């Protein structure tokens, strides 16, 4: 008889686990999938084109009703899980209890809303899921004004989408350059210029004092007194893991649900993955490690030895119209050497950071060809001294075959 498996959350990590399980062990589990959103898994990364209008929701769905039906997955979408009894192995949901043999928590994360005065006013939105996206779309009348708080990836995507829908957009960023966790100041400056070329205002060092408005958001007031009038405010300052359900159930949590390399929580039969977990002190927000976790978890459930090993984090991103790549440690300092490429007219900037002959970090703006190879070199940590002059041109530019070292015939 099949084991009863409950999955709480239908984000991308959960979707990937389901794919593994239904493919590798089709009849082993009787699966119930809960999701607070009234839908199954879609490609959250593709929300930006939905916001900008280039794609529809249907085009970014990865698992539709038919998909679940054919694999016998019981879907309880739009239904919140209220509590878990890990002793009895029962999940209490809005429409009743369900027992499990094994439980996967994939509760993901929630957008962080800066608790400034006025943050609860109507017109203050987050940008996390399809519903947020729909809310922004309905607010986005041409000529209306939007303020996006947060100049990270998500904020810039929101800004681009809103701008594409004809809104006047201002991005407020607390730090002195955009995407400071992925980019250095020079790349950040290029990114800012590119935003401004698209008609998006960017204000750096912008600390929000309050969101002003009587019945709804009307302006964002900065600490320096500047006031930016707006019709909507989008908060995109970060996410917080959602682990309250686990915590309440007595499952060990730190900054998120604590898991081991097999994605096991401290409670037998309960697993977790995705943005809601903490592994060796690290949290996860990018899709690649989530997919690794999904594979490991599926293996764990089906009895295949596997372990989650966090990879060097690299960001290869596309902020609508701008190619970016960022990996490893790109801070400068003693003992670190830099290879820098600048092509201002082509708006290309590349910076590689080396330490003791090894590539430890890279930032690429504008032309990301060869970036995967650089990422691989960072991960491998091998000596690249002999490739220094041509490292930036990628793997095809290596080796000495056919090169001459003087203007003489041999």
């Amino acid at each position, binding site marked *: 008889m099949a084991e009863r498996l409950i999955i709480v959350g239908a984000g991308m990590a959960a979707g990937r686990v389901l794919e593994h399980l239904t493919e590798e062990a089709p009849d082993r589990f009787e699966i119930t999938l809960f999701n607070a959103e009234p839908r199954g898994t879609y490609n959250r990364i593709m929300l930006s084109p939905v916001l900008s209008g280039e794609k529809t929701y249907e085009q970014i769905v990865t698992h539709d009703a038919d998909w679940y039906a054919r694999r016998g997955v019981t879907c309880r979408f739009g239904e919140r899980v209220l509590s878990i009894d890990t002793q009895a192995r029962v999940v209490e949901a809005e429409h009743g209890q369900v027992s499990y043999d094994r439980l996967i928590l994939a509760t993901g994360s929630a957008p962080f809303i800066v608790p400034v005065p006025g943050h609860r006013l109507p017109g203050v939105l987050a940008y996390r899921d399809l519903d947020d996206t729909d809310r922004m779309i309905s607010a986005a009348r041409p000529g209306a004004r939007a303020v996006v708080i947060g100049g990270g990836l998500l904020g810039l995507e929101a800004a681009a989408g809103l701008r594409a829908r004809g809104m006047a957009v201002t991005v407020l960023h607390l730090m002195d350059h955009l995407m400071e966790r992925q980019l250095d100041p020079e790349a950040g400056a290029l990114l800012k210029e590119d935003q401004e070329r698209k008609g998006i205002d960017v204000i750096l060092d912008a600390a929000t004092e309050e969101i002003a408005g009587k019945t709804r958001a009307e302006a964002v007031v900065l600490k320096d007194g500047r006031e930016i009038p707006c019709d909507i405010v989008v908060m995109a300052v970060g996410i917080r893991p959602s682990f309250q359900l686990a915590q309440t159930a007595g499952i060990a949590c730190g900054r998120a649900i604590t898991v081991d390399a097999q994605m096991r929580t401290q409670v037998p039969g309960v697993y977790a993955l995705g943005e809601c977990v903490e592994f060796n002190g690290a949290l996860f927000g990018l899709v690649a490690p989530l997919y690794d976790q999904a594979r490991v978890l599926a293996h764990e459930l089906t009895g295949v030895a596997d372990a989650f090993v966090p990879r060097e984090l690299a960001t290869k991103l596309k902020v609508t119209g701008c190619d970016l790549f960022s990996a490893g440690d790109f801070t400068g300092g003693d003992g670190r*050497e*830099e*290879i*820098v*490429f*600048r*092509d*201002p*007219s*082509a708006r*290309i900037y590349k910076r590689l950071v*080396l330490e003791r002959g090894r590539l430890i970090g890279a930032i690429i703006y504008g032309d990301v060809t060869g970036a995967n190879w650089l990422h691989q070199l960072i991960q491998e940590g091998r000596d690249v001294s002999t490739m*220094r*002059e*041509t490292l*930036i*041109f990628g793997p*095809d*530019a290596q*080796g*000495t*075959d*056919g*090169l*001459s*070292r*003087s*203007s*003489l*015939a*041999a």
Partner: protein
Amino acid sequence: MDGAPLPALADDAEPRVTVKSTCAYCGVGCGVLLTPDGKGGLEVRGDPDHPANRGRLCSKGSALGETVGLAHRLLAPVVNGRATGWDDALQLVADRFRETIAEHGPDAVALYVSGQLLTEDYYVANKLAKGFMGTANIDTNSRLCMASTVAGQRRAFGTDTVPQTYEDLEEADLIVLVGSNMAWCHPVLYQRVLAARAARRTKIVVVDPRRTASCDGADLRLALEPGSDVALFNRLLADLYEGGALDATFLRHTEGFDETLAQAMNDDISVTGLAEEDVQAFVRLWRDNEKVVTVFSQGVNQSSAGSDKVNAILNCHLATGRIGKPGCGPLSVTGQPNAMGGREVGGLANMLACHLDLENADHRAAVRDFWGCDRVPEAPGLKAVDMFRAVGDGRIKALWVIHTNPAVSMPDADAVREAIRGCDFVVVSDVTAATDTARLADVLLPATAWGEKSGTVTNSDRTISRQRAVLPAPGLTRPDWAQLAEVGRRMGFKNAFDYASEAEIFREYAALSGIAGRFGKDFDISGLAGLDRAGYDALPPVRWPVSATRTGGRFFADGQFYHADGKARLVPVAWRPPVAKVGPRYPFRLNTGRIRDQWHTMTRTALSPRLAAHLAEPFLEIHPEDAADLGIGLADLCVLDSPQGRAILRARITDDVLRGQVFAPMHWTGETAPAARIDAVVAPVVDPVSGQPESKASVVKVSRMQAAWYGFAVSARNVTPTGDYWARAVTKAGHRVEMAGYAAPPNWETAAREMFGLAQAEVSILEDRAAGSARLAFREAGRLVAVLFVSPGPVAVMRDYLVQMPEVPDLTLLSGRAPADRPDPGVVVCACFDVGMNTILRAIESDGLVSVDEIGKALQAGTNCGSCRPELAALLTRVQTQTEQTPVRPTSPNLTQPKEAAE
């Protein structure tokens, strides 16, 4: 400027006319067919009717059409840096020379002229100096070239006469090349030799310390110690005597045999460093082949024992009677288009005119009467090296340099440059202001260039050919004879220099030679003295003498010589080593010479991208073991120090040179590679008889240049390079530059903008400050205009791909590599058809080519001038060797590695 308009160019609609002329370069004197395109350009082909080349041309001759543009030309007289008109300029020249003579005597002035001059120019220059300025201080760059042959032939024959003709190369059974890299320096003659060898299995011996392209396929190569030729030919003479191979009958036409033989037997062959069996093989070849032609060139002449070497060779030919016969005799080959014409008119400080002697009072009187002057000098003037010493110490106060570049080409060139700089009054006639010497001139006179000027030249086998004008004289340029004659007139000698045309000068010259003929001299072309303008214009190539009694032919087979007693002289000669001695401070012997595709100081050849592509920078050939001892690696730069000066050159590590010897080309100048002026390190040592400098046996120290940075640049425009070493060459669309320096500039972008003259251009930069490397590309209006690669070591990029800029795709440019669909052609091997080494290697490998002829069929390479054929053969050998050693080659070879490193 006078404001005179440029002459109108021919209307494009006019039918194209092809005119016969002769090549601008070496002493082979090839006939060319010139077809102007009406827009200033010129199509150049070999003249199938010319006896020197029968339609062949070498790479340099084939590329003449690329060198006739006006971009580099001097188009108006310049006085003290300001353009002016002829009237002012020539009056100043005439006044200053007249005043200097009046104040300090005639020997305070000097003319330094050149084998570039046409015979008519040369004649007028000689007449002006010796007849009317009253000084014998007229010498020529031929002094650096074949003065030792002049001296040797005069000692042996009583006249400076080449007995043989080029046809002898086809009729010989044995050809001995002594100090001659004929394959590169006289390529058309070499092709004649190779054709003869193919037809009749001619044997070839090469006597040269260095393995050159001429050694390819030689039956015997004698890599003797530099300067030991006398010992070799003394041994030959002694062995021929002992073997009974001398010609007793012919010896009756000679004097000096006994002393000469005694001296020869006294010499020690061991100084040559040759293996005894090789020496015996050489003697056997000589003994067994009656028809032997000994070709000799600068390896013989440019020596402190140059005249003795010439006589050592001539002694063997005279003692065996092997002279002046078909396929049999000594054949000196000269380096310049009209070196021979200069000798004939007497354009050297120790000659008079038409083989008449300065020291002979009757000759002087005859010439004086003919010219209508008061007197001619009784003693020789200063030969080149002494002349510039006299310039340096102030004895010569007015100097006129015509078509030559002594600030580069003289030994101890830095000292010569300073001497010229310090001279009171310096006139330079040239076609360009961009030479090291022209930059020092007080007065610059713009001359018509090859293709624009008209006159005659004499080649190495006494064939007089016409050079004809096919292009209009640009700007205010004038023929040299017209400049010289006008100065003569303005100095007060109106009648003597009242020439209307070069034809008139030629008639006077031919008439003077008739006087020489009446003195019994061999140089008599009085048969041409009656040529009218039409006859002169139509003059076909003709070998002198041309007199009532004889035309052309060979000399001396009849035993009639030109010493007073009618006999030849065997000259006793003993080996002596080069003057400079190697030792702990200067442990290397420096050889210098020409390369295949450049000529002299490159003022013309450097204009051709095809010619620049073969060896696009100056280099030092050094033996692999010496290089290893000195820590000199592949493509490192070498510093050469001698007691005279310093030069920096690219290492070319090769066992073509023996240990302890290095070789450097002579061509690079302040314009093209200012740190590589090789004559700056050459000692001003001369042959005591001929005054010719010992350009091939200086001593030097060699060390690795401790460069902090190396650079390579390609630019659409001219570049003002930076660095302690740089070498600039033209490409099809601009220039390429190699650079290196002891200290890097603080900011490469600033330095590059200055170098390229691109203050505003867009730039993309790749910089690795810690490693000391940088790559920069500049664009204007989106078009690529310049690129610079900087590296802490020799820059490693695909140069021959990059020099195709701006056709190189912008995106891949800074990687320094060709994309897979546009392979790097490699260094140009065949300059005639612009075929690169990689292209050839790929064809050899992929099409399985096994012979030079197959390469020619597949790629055309080597099928025109043939001077790259030895290199094609070497490439075939390289591929075959690799294939044998590594049946499956994992990667393609590093094409720039020297052979021994690649194997």
